[in-house]
């Protein structure tokens, strides 16, 4: 039995709920048990009668509590289950056809669809129904197979980055056989032409259940440039409610990494299906945008790829004569500027300055000769894909450029002088333009009659001339010639860029020609006429989820199809590369309308959500138990047996039970320790685990600290023992590490910490405490242990302390470093091999660092150790000589700490002669 989303495994038990009113009556009738009280005043009570013969009733809330508890027990025992799995419909053993719309719009809910499909297949598998899965956007004849075999192929199903077309529907219609089957249609929620026809056909063969997500379909139309800003428009299928989205521009940053360049919020007003906004981006940034997408929408419709149309081409304009101030209309660049202004970025300056900016186009208006440096740079730039656009003019006509032989940057050789037609001093009419031939990039442009040419430079007839001409006059003389240089090209207009020689710059044709030459940026999809005869090669295509993938070996696409067809399996959305530009084919076009699908009223439409089955019995029984607990306490409180002290105790107990675990006190302790160490100079020793050694080390550091305190300006705080595993090392400047043969090896993490510590300026004094009886690290147990301990450490090459080491003079002048033992070999970081003796100085200019380790075995801590009253703990040597030795041990300690704290400052005395010398001047 089910009740809303809750089903019951044992519904008959619910009949017991009838007994609840009975409970009410019983509980009201039976009074609470009396309390017996000792009370001397009872003598005065004798003979008093209760006014009301009815009992003191149980309060209504306690009754309610009890009834709720009982009801919870009854309902809990009847086995309630939230969202019970419907039993597989065993009555129908018909095969099941799963029809997936599988378009970009269904990509938004693809995981949910697949999950539901998996569940359906599992159920079908249990009922041994055969299943076929049909992808509407990529139709293949349905094959009814076992559900299991389909389940294995689920992960291979991906949404297509297009929507099914009528052709697809027809194809599917023709595939449906005559046998009956049940249909599960996973709809993407968008209207489809002739969907009803398919639905009818399916309904004839069995029941149809539609699964459709309620999440709205959002899509992004291609960006449009408006006054230098990018207009972004998002669409949605249903205009209900307000919806705010964020549109993101992705592209490569200067380092080449893909990242978010900008984002802009868009808001759908209620009832509106479109939201648009202007995104203002610097041209540099805009040129780098590779795609716009709606944030958090993982489908191809929310992605709009950008192509060259977003890029504003950079055009460098260079004129031969710039000296004629004020005569703007005569300026060779005026018309070019006017034509290019709306669509291109203009660069001005001299050629050598402009070329490194890597403009897309360089326009040379009547520039005849270039310096050889300019020419080389130019050639290199053109060969790399640059476009050189040259205009003729008086200078070019007068020069010898490309006269005898073809100039590398000129498409043709020129005849001397050029010609003038239709002028006052010449014969003939000004020449008109001839229609453009098919192999010309200008093919398809109208040639207006009013465009006339009255003067031009003439090309020398050459064998290559014919193929280089892309526009000519009505008499056959070349007007525009082009030569490919490397991957770039050089184009020469045989007229001036101003209206002196022809009316061409005055006409609209001029702009169109510039556009065709890709001098100015193309605004949108090329027109049909331009696309005719072109073939575009897909570079990257979109997946249904809106990701780009390599096009692989997809075939080229005929240009006209871009204008005529919607994206489909043969025309996949993505980036295409054409003759001289890139074209982005997006899933959503400007005119795409998102229309929600309307299913006939008879068709059941089910959401994708399938909440998991949740047995509620346990929860209910727990609730009942808790209610009964509350009842106990409440009853006790009511009858006065819950004494106040007990109530407090109970509250404390409950609080204890409910209170979260007290935060780990240890970590705080460690933090405190580190904090204390940062506020003072703290000498630290490594805890070895040997109590005696640790105590000695502590006492030793205490003694050293006292000595420092009295003799120097270093005033250390109490020494601390450091646990390498848990404590923060970086706060200690100096670590004393006595070596015992049996101390534990630190963990890898601890070694990492120690290495960091050593690299960042810390110092460890290793003390084998065995007077180095066996020579450094050879065979004494402590020596071997030291080797073992130190092997993972990042210790530089070592050497015995040289006589001129800074350690010998940081505070006291020392020759020996005795501790409790007198051993000569104390090892420190080796001096760099190139250390040199400075002339006139007793020591070399040594390394700049503090030695990270000092290794010895003189048991310094024992020599330093003092007790609480300041008396030495251990005897050193004998008599006065022994005391002298202890004094030297203290001096060594002072020098060591000074070395740690002041670094090589004493080494800087090397420079004293030079400083004095300089002061003297």
């Amino acid at each position, binding site marked *: 039995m089910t009740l809303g989303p809750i089903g019951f495994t044992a519904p008959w038990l619910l009949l017991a709920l009838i007994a609840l009113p009975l409970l009410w009556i019983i509980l009201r009738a039976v009074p609470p048990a009396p309390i017996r009280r000792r009370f*001397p005043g009872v003598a005065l009570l004798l003979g008093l009668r209760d*006014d009301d013969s009815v009992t003191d009733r149980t309060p209504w809330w306690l009754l309610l509590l009890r009834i709720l508890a009982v009801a919870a027990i009854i309902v809990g025992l009847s086995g309630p289950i939230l969202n019970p799995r419907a039993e597989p419909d065993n009555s129908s053993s018909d095969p099941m056809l799963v029809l997936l719309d599988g378009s970009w719009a269904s990509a938004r809910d693809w995981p949910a669809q697949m999950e539901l499909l998996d569940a359906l297949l599992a159920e079908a598998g249990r009922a041994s129904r055969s299943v076929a899965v049909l992808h509407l956007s990529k139709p293949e004849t349905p094959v009814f197979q076992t559900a299991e075999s389909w389940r294995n192929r689920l992960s291979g199903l991906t949404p297509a980055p297009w929507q099914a077309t009528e052709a697809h529907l027809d194809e599917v219609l023709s595939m449906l056989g005559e046998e009956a089957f049940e249909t599960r249609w996973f709809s993407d929620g968008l209207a489809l032409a002739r969907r009803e026809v398919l639905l009818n056909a399916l309904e004839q063969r069995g029941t149809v259940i539609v699964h459709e997500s309620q999440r709205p379909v959002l899509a992004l139309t291609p960006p449009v440039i408006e006054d230098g800003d990018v207009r972004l428009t998002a669409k949605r299928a249903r205009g209900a409610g307000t919806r705010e989205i964020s549109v993101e521009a992705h592209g490569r940053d200067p380092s080449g990494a893909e990242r978010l360049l900008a984002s802009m919020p868009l808001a759908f007003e209620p009832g509106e299906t479109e939201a648009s906004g202007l995104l203002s981006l610097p041209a540099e940034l805009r040129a780098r945008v590779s795609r716009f997408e709606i944030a958090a929408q993982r489908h191809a419709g929310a992605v709009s790829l950008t192509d060259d149309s977003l890029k504003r081409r950079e055009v460098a304009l260079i004129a031969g004569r710039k000296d004629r101030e004020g005569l703007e209309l005569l300026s060779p660049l005026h018309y070019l500027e006017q034509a290019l202004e709306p669509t291109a970025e203009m660069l001005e300056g001299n050629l050598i300055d402009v070329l490194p900016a890597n403009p897309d186009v360089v326009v040379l208006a009547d520039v005849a000769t270039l310096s050889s440096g300019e020419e080389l740079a130019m050639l290199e730039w053109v060969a790399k894909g640059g476009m050189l656009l040259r205009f003729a003019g008086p200078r070019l006509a007068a020069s010898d450029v490309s006269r005898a032989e073809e100039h590398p940057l000129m498409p043709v050789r020129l005849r001397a002088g050029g010609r003038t037609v239709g002028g006052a001093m010449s014969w003939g009419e000004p020449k008109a333009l001839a229609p453009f031939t098919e192999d010309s990039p200008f093919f398809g442009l109208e040639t207006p009659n009013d465009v006339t040419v009255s003067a031009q430079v003439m090309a020398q007839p050459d064998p290559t001339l014919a193929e280089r001409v892309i526009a000519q006059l009505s008499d056959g003389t070349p007007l525009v010639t082009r030569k490919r240089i490397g991957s770039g090209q050089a184009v020469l207009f045989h007229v001036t860029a101003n209206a002196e020689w022809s009316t061409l710059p005055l006409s609209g044709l001029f702009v169109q020609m510039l556009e065709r030459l890709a001098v100015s940026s193309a605004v949108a999809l090329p027109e049909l006429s331009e696309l005719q005869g072109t073939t575009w090669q897909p570079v990257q295509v979109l997946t249904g989820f809106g990701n780009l993938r390599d096009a692989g070996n997809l075939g080229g696409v005929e240009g006209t199809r871009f204008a005529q067809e919607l994206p489909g399996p043969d025309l996949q959305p993505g980036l295409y590369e054409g003759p001289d530009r890139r074209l982005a084919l997006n899933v959503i076009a400007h005119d795409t309308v998102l229309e929600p699908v309307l299913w006939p009223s008879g068709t059941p439409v089910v959401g994708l959500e399938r909440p998991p089955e949740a047995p509620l019995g346990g929860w209910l029984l727990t609730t009942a138990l808790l209610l009964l607990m509350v009842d106990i306490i409440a009853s006790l409180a009511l009858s006065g047996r819950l004494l106040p002290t007990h109530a407090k105790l109970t509250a404390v107990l409950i609080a204890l039970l409910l209170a979260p675990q007290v935060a780990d006190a240890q970590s705080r302790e460690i933090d405190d320790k580190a904090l204390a160490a940062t506020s003072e100079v703290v000498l630290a020793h490594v805890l070895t685990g040997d109590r005696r050694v640790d105590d000695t080390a502590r006492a030793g550091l205490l003694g050293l600290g006292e000595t420092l305190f009295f003799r120097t300006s270093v005033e250390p705080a109490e020494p601390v023992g450091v646990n390498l595993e848990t404590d923060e090392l970086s706060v200690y400047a100096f670590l004393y590490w006595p070596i015992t043969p049996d101390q534990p090896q630190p963990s890898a993490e601890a070694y990492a910490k120690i290495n960091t510590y050593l690299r960042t300026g810390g110092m460890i004094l290793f003390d084998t405490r065995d007077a180095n009886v066996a020579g450094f690290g050879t065979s004494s147990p402590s020596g071997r242990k030291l080797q073992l301990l130190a092997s993972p450490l990042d210790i530089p090459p070592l050497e015995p302390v040289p006589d001129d080491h800074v350690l010998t003079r940081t505070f006291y002048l020392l020759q020996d470093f005795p501790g409790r033992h007198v051993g000569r070999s104390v090892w420190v970081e080796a001096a760099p091999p190139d250390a040199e003796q400075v002339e006139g100085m007793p020591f070399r200019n040594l390394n700049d660092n503090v030695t990270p380790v000092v290794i010895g075995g003189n048991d310094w801590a024992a020599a330093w150790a003092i007790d609480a009253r300041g008396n030495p703990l251990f005897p050193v040597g004998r008599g006065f000589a022994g005391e002298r030795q202890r004094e030297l041990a203290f001096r060594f300690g002072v020098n060591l700490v000074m070395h740690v704290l002041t670094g090589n400052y004493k080494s800087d005395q090397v420079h004293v002669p030079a400083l004095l010398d300089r002061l003297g001047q």
Partner: protein
Amino acid sequence: MTVSASLRARSEAEAARFPALLARAEHLAGTVMLGEHGRRRPGMGDDFWQYRPAQAGDELRLIDWRRSARSDTQFLRQREWKIAQSVTLWVDSSASMRFASDKNHVQKTDRARLLALAIAILLNRSGERIGLSGADLPPRRGEAQIERLSHALTKELNIDYGAPETTGMLSHGRAVFFSDFFGDIGPVRNALTDAADRGVQGILFQILDPAEENFPYRGRTVFESMGGTLAHETLKASELRKRYLERLASRKDELRRLCIDTGWRYGLHHTSQPAQNALLWLFNAIEGEHHV
């Protein structure tokens, strides 16, 4: 546990309590300044009062020869006049007195004994004779009497409600009755009229627990007397409160009227109040009458 062992244990517990009670009572008595206990005139008494020249008619044996030897005239040694009053105490030691509604409050019997002993100590210091009603402890003076008194006070009776005893009261003496007076009013009336007949004046000192004054009970309750002989069941204790308080007030009124009739004084004390106030009141009530 054998009877003797239990007896031993109980008596030890009692013995342990006895000095404590005495100590507390002395402590309490020490807080009262005995400023006016002497009569300030010559008379019968123990303490020296003055020497006065002998006059005609003085008995020869009254002359203080030692003083007279130092002068030419004879002197009499006069002692301060003291009237030794007999004060008879009755402390209700029945079960109903052993009630304390709260841990913070002492039992009524505890308070009664403390006050009785403290007033005994004070009276002893001011030269009165103290005794317990009944035949056990006739009024006497001295520290030993205090000891005996404190011993006698630790006795406990198992009856539910006690009735005052008038035996052992000396005529024209004084008496103090400590009780909650929850029992039958008849014996109290008899005792008081009896005492009035014998010229005994005194104080009815009622000691009550705060719970007895407030009746803070609710719900279905069976009230039992401390001895368990009386029981009263109610379904709604809260309903009884008003009528209980009325009855308590009428009992107090009755006691008060009884006192007026017999020339006694009536005092009320709650165990939640400090004992010192009660002691002061009691002492003034007893001693003050001398000066009227």
